[in-house]
Every structure is written in C-alpha cells, then in structure tokens.
C-alpha cells in the first residue's frame, strides 16, 4: 500500500518520488484524509537540519528546527523578536514542539473544503473552488487567485518582513516570493519542484535598533488560526521612521507585504498620526469576497495595533555573546506585495 523511506543523508532524501515528512503535524492528518498518498520520505534520520546558527551576521534556521525552538531561542527573541513572537503564537504547545520551520512554510492550506474526506476543490484535483461560491467566512479578502484559502504559514508572514533566502537542495535558492509564486496556480501549495528539499532559511540582519511586533487577530485567546495577522518592523532614528516593513497574513492566498502602508511610514515622524494614516491604507487594493469584507476593517485595526506596539517597544538591547553586530538593512527586493 504505502511505503516509508528513512534516508540517512540529505542526498539520499533528494529526488525521490513521494512526500517529505518533517514533524508530521500537517502530513499525518492529510494522510488520514487521503489528501496525501504514496511514499513518505521521513527526514527523521537526516542530520544537520535542526540547528539555529549565525552565518556572517545572518541567522540561519534549519528546516527541521521546531517552532518551539524558534520561539524560545534567545538570539531569535533578542534580534528577531517578531519571528519569535510569531512562532510562539502558532497552534498549540504540543504542535509547536513538533512542527518545523520547513514544514510550516510548506504546509497545505487549512481550508475547510480542502481538509475533509472527499474534498473536491482545486487543490485536491477538482475543477472549482467550493469556498468561493460557498462559505468563505474565514477566507481571503485580497482575491489573488482561484484558490481563496488564506496562506496557512504565520512564519511566512513573519519572514516576509525580512530579507530571506530560502535554501533548497535540488533546486535554486528561493526568495519567499519565488517560493510561493503569485497565487495564480491554485493547484500548488508552493513552487518547489518534486524531489527538492527546503533545507533552511537565512534571515537578513536585523535593523539597528529594530522595533517589532506581531499581532494575531482571533476569537479565542489561543490555539486558533488568525483571522488576520500582522508583522511590523520599524527602525526609528531621531524621531523619524527610517525603515518600515509591514507584512500581513490571513488575508490572501499568499503572505503580503503592504508597500502602501510602508510608504506612508518611511521618513515620517514616529507618532500616532503617522501610524493612523499609514494603517488607514492597509486594505488598499483589497478585493473581498462576499463574506470577508469585515477583514478589511480588521486588517486596518490589526496593522494599527502592530504599529503602535512596535513603536512602544524599546529597541532590543542585550546582545548575546555570539551575536555579531548587525549590518544595515538592505534595500527591498522584489517580494509579493
């Protein structure tokens, strides 16, 4: 029926037909739902993918690093607080103990039309999107493509706020933009070719005096998928916002970077009026579905919340011994906006 492979080297894990398994928190359910068939290539015995290391001023997260480890790592907390906060907000403690960086970035959508027995949607091989014409209360409000399920990776939303290089064995290096494409191919969960293996992500250096925040809008206190989530990074000098990164999730089939919001922040005085004016354009370009117009309001609120919280933070001060001084932020590269 099904086979399980347990390669013991990275090379042996590459180029094989089947689905890769890291922590298994997503795949186990999809196996049960028959959304995944055939061989499982379990990375249990592949060494070297589970470390958080500094590489020339940039932080490398191995693909098999757990979200719990990301959330708890002192350097991540100190230098990439939004990444730590995002990882800490995902799912439950039990899930975070097993879920990995690679698995989180490449997981499949949580759409309630997809994750059920007998799913018949674009992502499960069907011909249409039943959510679009059905119940899409928790779906996209930026309608970027045929599949309207929100992108499931909170970590991707956080990483999009950084210069990130996605290392892939068996394929070229990716940006987050090239990892996910433009959302127009509803059948794909990511753009990696079969047989390739995401081995880690390299986060660009943090900004000097970076202030960051993560906001996850939910109903319950914890353990819930976000209606909207926002990551903000601000660098403030002499009362002015030098650099701003604002990324959002839960609103489109991709994590989005809100260039319009950033444009209204950069170079402006770091005070409430600036934040309010910037947050007001957060939903610019949105195209809500019949039942997701409320997310525009929520998005503006969550962006404002994240901006305020970022500004209120004191810059991260303590530098762990092994942490080198960060280099200045580089100009933005092409990423989904």
């Amino acid at each position: 029926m099904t086979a399980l492979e347990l390669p013991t080297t990275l090379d042996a894990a590459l180029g094989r037909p089947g689905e890769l398994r890291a922590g298994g928190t997503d795949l186990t359910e999809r196996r049960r739902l028959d959304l995944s068939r055939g061989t499982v290539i379990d990375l249990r015995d592949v060494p070297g993918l589970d470390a958080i290391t500094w590489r020339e001023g940039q932080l490398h997260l191995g693909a098999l690093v757990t979200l719990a480890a990301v959330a708890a790592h002192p350097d991540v907390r100190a230098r990439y607080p939004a990444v730590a906060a995002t990882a800490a907000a995902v799912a439950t403690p039990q899930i975070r103990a097993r879920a990995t960086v690679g698995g989180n970035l490449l997981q499949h959508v949580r759409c309630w039309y997809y994750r059920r027995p007998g799913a018949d949607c674009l992502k499960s091989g069907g011909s249409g999107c039943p959510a679009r014409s059905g119940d899409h209360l928790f779906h996209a409000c930026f309608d970027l493509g045929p599949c309207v399920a929100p992108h499931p990776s909170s970590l991707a939303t956080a990483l999009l706020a950084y210069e990130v290089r996605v290392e892939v064995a068996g394929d070229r290096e990716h940006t987050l933009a090239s990892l996910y494409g433009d959302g127009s191919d509803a059948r794909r969960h990511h753009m990696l070719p079969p047989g390739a293996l995401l081995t880690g992500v390299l986060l660009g250096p943090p900004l000097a005096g970076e202030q960051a925040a993560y906001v996850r809008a939910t109903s319950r206190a914890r353990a819930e998928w976000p209606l909207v989530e926002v990551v903000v990074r601000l660098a403030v000098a002499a009362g002015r916002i030098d650099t701003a990164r604002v990324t959002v999730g839960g609103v489109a089939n991709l994590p989005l970077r809100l260039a319009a919001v950033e444009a209204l922040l950069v170079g402006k005085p770091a005070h409430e009026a600036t934040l309010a004016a910037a947050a007001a354009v957060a939903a610019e370009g949105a195209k809500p579905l019949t039942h997701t117009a409320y997310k525009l309001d929520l998005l503006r609120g969550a962006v404002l919340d994240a901006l305020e919280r970022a500004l209120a933070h004191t810059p991260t001060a303590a530098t762990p011994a092994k942490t080198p001084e960060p280099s200045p932020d580089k100009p933005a590269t092409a990423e989904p906006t």
Partner: protein
Amino acid sequence: MSPPISRRGILRGTLGGGTVLVGESCAPKIVGERAEAPSLPAVGDAGPASHALEFTVNGAARSITVDPERTALELVRRDLGLTGCKEACGHGACGACSVLLDDVPVAACLLPAVALHRRKLVTVEGLAPAGELHPVQRAFMAEDALQCGFCTPGFVVAASAFYTRWRAEHGDAEPDRDTVAAALAGNLCRCAAYDGIIRAVQKASSGAYEKPPGPEPAPPRYDARDKVTGAAKYTVDVQLPGQLEGKILRSPHAHARVRKVDWSKALALPGVFGAVDLLHGGTTLRFVGQEIAAIAAIDARTAEAALAAIELDLEVLPPLVGMDAARAPGAAPVYPTRNTRKSAPNASEGPLLPLGWDGNVRGPFQLFSTAKLKARRAVARLREAPAEGVLVEGTYKTQVQCHTALEPHACVARWTDDDAVTVHLSTQGVHAVAEDIAERWGLRRDRVRVLAPYVGGGFGAKVTLQLECVAAVELARITARPVRVVLERREELTTGGLRPAQEIELAVATDRDGYLQGVTARAFADAGCSVGSTSTVLMRLMYAKAPKDIADWDVVNHAPPGKPFRGPGGPPVFWALEQAVDIAAERLELDPILLRKRFDPNPARNHLYDWALSLKTWRERQPAQSDRGRFRRGMGLAVGGWFYFVQPSARVQIDAGPDGIVASTACQDIGNGTRTVIAATVAAVLGLAPADIKVEIGDSSLVPGPTSGGSRTTASLVPAATMAAEQLRDELLERAEQLVGARGVAVPGGVRHPRGVVTWQQLLAGSPPLRFVGTRKRDKGGYFLPPMADIAPGRYVAGSLQIIEVEVDTRLGKIRVLRSHTGIAAGHIVAPALARSQALGGVIQGIGYALYEERRLDPNTGALLTGGLEDYRIPGIGDIGELDVHFVEDGYERVNGRSVGLAELVTLAPAAAIGNAVAHATGFRPRELPLRPDRVLQGLRG
C-alpha cells in the same frame, strides 16, 4: 425481527428521542449479511510491520515493529495497551492524546510512530512510580480539576511538563493564571473544569502537592484517582478478544433517493466479516452524513476500505440547506407525505404532539401560552400608543451548537448467547438503554447487560439508544464476534448531537412603571431534518404570572438532526428574553435587577436578586458606556429558571457484611459525580468517610438507576441512598442492642451504648450479608404533573443569576470575559466542590456558545465544514476569566432530599449576560450569536 428505534422521549423514561431514523417507512427488519468466509487481510492496520523501533516507554526499553502509517497514538493505545492516552479529535486540537516525548508534551495523534525511535516516551501511566502519584495528579484530585475525566490524562501529562520546567526556573513561586493557561493551551476540556485545572497547576507548581508524609488524602471526587492516573476505562478503551471494528457508511449528499445499496464487493474483501443496513427500509437521505450501512472488519482501515467498496446507486436530489431555503416560496417539502412526516426524528426531550405542517414549517406548538389574547393586546396597544409603557421588540438569532463530548459515541457489543447481549456503551442511561435494547431485539431484560463504568461526557447527546449501538449490536450478531463502533470526531459533529439554531421574534410589554403586561414570542427552530423544538415553554417558566402568547415552529431542512442539549431550548430563549428585559430596564431607567424583581414571583430567584444587589461589584458597576477608548468594559446580568425532575423508579441498593458496605445502582457517571453523591450520602447517614463506602454503578444489572439527563441524577439518588442507608443503620442498631443488651444511639462510625461504642465494622463483622434497597419517595405535595413513564416534573423551579464582566476590543472585535459571578438556587448542595465545578463548566459552555461555537454547513451542498475541533471551536483554558459561584441552599424543604439539580440551570443565562454586558460596554445591542469579531465590528460601526 427488531422493532424500529423508539421515537418516544420522556414517556419511555429516557430523555430524548433524537435517534436518527429517517426512513419512509418504519420497516422493523434490519438487514445484514455475513461474509461467507472472511479471510485475514494482506494489508490492514496491523499490516506490513516493516519498521523496527527501539525506544523506552515509561522507563522500560521496548523493541517493536510497526507499519509505516501507524501513529504514536495507535501504537500507545493498541500495541502497548496504554489507554490513558485518549483519542478525541484526531488532529492535534484537543491534547487528549498528549504524551511526553523526551520530556516534552506532544500530540500522539499527529506523531508518526517511527518518530519514537531512540526516544523516551512517557504516558500518564508512567508519570509516577507504580502505586504513587505525581504532584500534578495529587493536585488535580485535591482541587477537583476534572469532571468526566476523559481529557484529564492529557491535561495531567501536559501540566507535568510545565510543573517540572516551572519549578526548575522559579522554585516555589506560584505561576499566574495566564501563564498556566498558555502552557495548557493545547488541551481542551468539554466539561470545562478549567478553573480547577488552573488552580491545581498553580498550586502543584508552587510545591503545595509534593508527596505527603502519611497516606494520600481522600479527594472530594470519589473516582478522581482512577481518572488522573489513566486507570479509568471508558467504552473506547474496551478491547475484547476477537473484537472487530465497525465503520458506518454515510450519505455524501444532503438529499438523495436510494435506489440500491450493494455491498457484495465489500464483503468479498479480505478481513471483512459482515455488513448491516441502517436505512431501516427508508429510501430517502436527508442530510450529509446520514447512516446508510455499517461494515465490520478486522480493523478500522480494512473497514474503511470496505465502505469505499460498497456500491451506492443514488438519485441525487436538490437540497434545502437552512431555514431560509426551506421556507422559500415553492420550496419542495422535505417530508412530502404524512407517513414521511411521522418518520421525522424527534429532537426534543418529550413525546411529539401532532401538529400541523405548512410545507417545511411544522407548528405552532403553543401549549404553554397563557392569557394569550391579553398578551397580544398588551403588545398591540403599545404599538398604537408607545407612551403608555415600554415595548421591546426584536428578532434574536442563535446558531447550531454541537455537544461534542470528548469521548465520542462508542459501543462494543458482544452476544454471549443467541438471546443474550453485553453492550459496553458510552451512555447517559445504562438502565434505560438496556430496556430499549431488550425491546428492540426482543430479548428478556435480564439477558441484556449495558456497561458504562466511565463515560467521557454526554451533555444530552447520549441519552437514548442510538445508531452506533444499533450498528455494533447488529454487526456483532451477524458476525458472531464482538464489534466496536466508535464515531470519529467528524461523525460526532455530524450526528453526535446538536442544539438547534433558533430565530425568536420577541415582544415584551410593560406599563410605565415597569410591570410586565405581556410577552409574545414566535420561535423558529432549525433542527435540520428533525422536529420537536419546544423552547418557548421556558418563557412560561420565567416571570410566571404575565400573559404570554408563545409558540414554536420547526423549519425542517436537509441537515443533521438535533438532540436535547444541556438545558434544551434554554440558551436561545434566554438570549432573547433576558436581553429584552435589559432593554426595557434601560428605557425605564431602572436597575435591571429591580425591574426583574417587579416581573418575577419566583422565590428562588428572589433570593438571588437580593444576593446580587448586595454584591459590591454590582453596586459599584460603572455607568453604561463609560469607557470611550479602544477597550471598553461592561457588566451584564441575566437570570434563568429550570425544571426539576426526578425518576421515581430510581433505587439504591446497599449490601453490607464482613467485607464492608457496597452501594449500587444502575446509574452512571458522566462527570457529574454520581459515585461521589452516593458515597457521600450513605457515609453521612453512618458517620463514615465516603471512601469507606464502595460504590458500584455503570451496570444495567444493578437496581434501576436514573438516566443522567434532565438534571435528575442527584435529586433522584440522594433520597434513595439515604433511605437504604437509614435502613442499614436501623438494622445495625438492633443488632447492637442484641449484642450489648442495651439500646444504643447511632453516632459517627457506629453505635454508642452505655458501655462504649461498637463500630459499624464490628457489627458487620459477625453479620450475615444484609441487603437494603432504598427508593425515591415522592415529594411532599406530590409533583407538578403525575409521573409519566418514570419521570416526574417537580413542583419547583430552580433559579440562576448570572453576572458577567467583559472587555470589548473595539479595534479587533474581540470580546474577552473578565469575570463571572454565578448565583444558584437549587437547594441542598451534596458535594460542594463538584457542584462548583459543574456550575462553572456550564457557565463556560455558555461562554463558548456566546462567543465561539458554531456548526457551519456548506450552503450549497449541506456538507459539514466545521468537522473537527480546530474549526468547531469550544472554549479553551485561556477564555474563561475569573469565576465564582454562590449557592443559595434555602428553600425546597418539601423536596425529598432538598436537592433539585443544577447541571442545566447553569448554562442558560451566560450568553444573555454577555449580550447585556456588551451593550453595557459599547451601546451595541447584539442580536445574533455567536459574537464573532466580524459581528462585533459590524455592530460597533453601526
């Protein structure tokens, strides 16, 4: 030849006839077929065991070979037999399967078994050395941090890891509530024993429950130790030799006609033993998930493969999903003929009365109106002349809420003879269901045995004989093997039971002084394809003297049927009524409590009004809409009233002799504390400790006990247990007199006589076996109605008063419950710690109903979208705020035992209190549940 499932509700003494029987005719015969020569499968659950694992489990090294698809959960429960690890949601949302992997809690259901290789696994069974307790277990027992116990091992495992980490980092400091909630955010408790759990973990983590020098103290809950150690065996844990696994084939369509069901290919598969029909002669399918047939096979995967091999010839018909579709002009009738209407499942607690049908609308049911015309006139007059009083009109909507107990519906059936069957069943009524089984299969009552030593929650969904039991019993008969049928979470959320959605058009009229002149209500219920909603009867119960024109309608459509759910009809009715009363108070500029006092002659609630008026928090509440910033706080109040039932047949038997005292009854514990109540009652009569009494329940072969539904368990059992215990006491007094030659008096522990004290144990040591059976004598003044087939509605109404403080985040639309204060007037409280826990659990379920829980179907196909505990969101441990309970124990002197039950009472008013609190905080008056962020934002923006 089996008669069809009974549609009788209360008349049978079982609460609720919500069985799923949706056939055209009531053909009694169940059709089944046995596989000719079942062969063992080449591939199955136990299939190609190709991967060798080495690991330690609870300290012992193990080598085991598993098949590649196996999860750690399957390995732990089946291969290792460690059943303290529970499967509840199957996708990592509930934490019932939590285990420690290298000391870190993980969800075993999402953990591939091969991940255990060279790792250290610890389950609840291994947290402490054999016979000892982990401090967290000790704390859970002492703080009564549990009810049904099904989720408890998972909580204990997760909390034990937190305990270790916390104490390493913080020593004896006590963690705050939110820190504990964050650590336990991956565990769900449907009974909602969260407050006790937080307290237990706080105290354990501060070192308060390290190993005591002496013996372990007795916990307030009699069976707590079995529940915190994983020793308690639930139906899902039963594993008999040769046991097969049964799976149910369900309708993929909301509306279809069955032309043919052909299971020949399925029966030919290796490992498949038999199939039975579950359509009962019906030919129309009326909801997605409706049961069609069941298959028994060597294991679950083989049974699932066999289901896929059943050939279904269906004529798919257009569905009507939801009330609007069903009420639309020209909508085709879901039940087109008189006969089909008679086959509609009963969603209610009571018998179905004959009512008229208009298309898909059945009703009105208006038996409980009083001074109907007067009520209508009062409303009409104020419409004409608004200045003459206050008229509050509006439509209030509520959603479908699922019971979704963490132990799903489960049954293991085994025929011990041609005419005798033993049924392990997760049920709220071992006695009643045994009678139903005997009747259905034409067996003598003493040839049917139903066993349920532990039941992982019910909330009304496990009261009657249901199809998981029918399927297991029939499959077991056909295959001559024990057969287990356990619903998966998606099935549980489909047919496991639900509270109907409601639309209530309500008008409340008062005069200018705030005296109630009349109430009119039209309530429309969406119980899917079932009928029988009678929610407005509760409006008769409330503010009893006012004229009322109140009526219910069912709007049938192609959706799963309802079942009675804790306080059936209550939360929707109080959501409407208690908000309308608050609106009237606003208009009259009266304190909402004072207005209710004008409306309300009920003595129980009047005690509670006085209590609430005395509360500082109420007296000093800020004026409405005081906060103008982003976060706005408000306080709301609502009251509730509930019936009081007893089961006159209830008995408690006491057997006493040299081996001790055993109290027994065919009742069961669903988390409500049945063992505790019996032990405490008997012990109190004899002046012993509850632990001195052995309690046997969960077995239909014992003397008849009450069904655990309709808040009747305690009210029925306490008088019976008291009577039996008093008979024993009196007998032993006489024996003492014979023994010592002088009349003594009963004192705690024995009999005092002129020369000293002789203990009960001494008296029993030389005694032949003694047996006494206590009964439930009627109340003074009798009942409100004479007992009908073993259930009697009492003359008294229990009362509750709910105050809830909320904080509304006007930016993100989120409502946070800060504090709740619950007042309860339900007579004498037998087991205070347990009553408190049950009350808070009901309040928290009400919070879930108000804010999160919502069953959603695809509007086009009727398919279930909220099919797991990730999408069907019950409250978590971080959602409860701070809670307190106040019991008013006065009153009910004429009730035998002075207890009237509180399980349902406590869940009626929280949603309405939250609605009133939101309006008090923000001015936004909510009408529709749940209060999701999108609704809050929309309401705030106008």
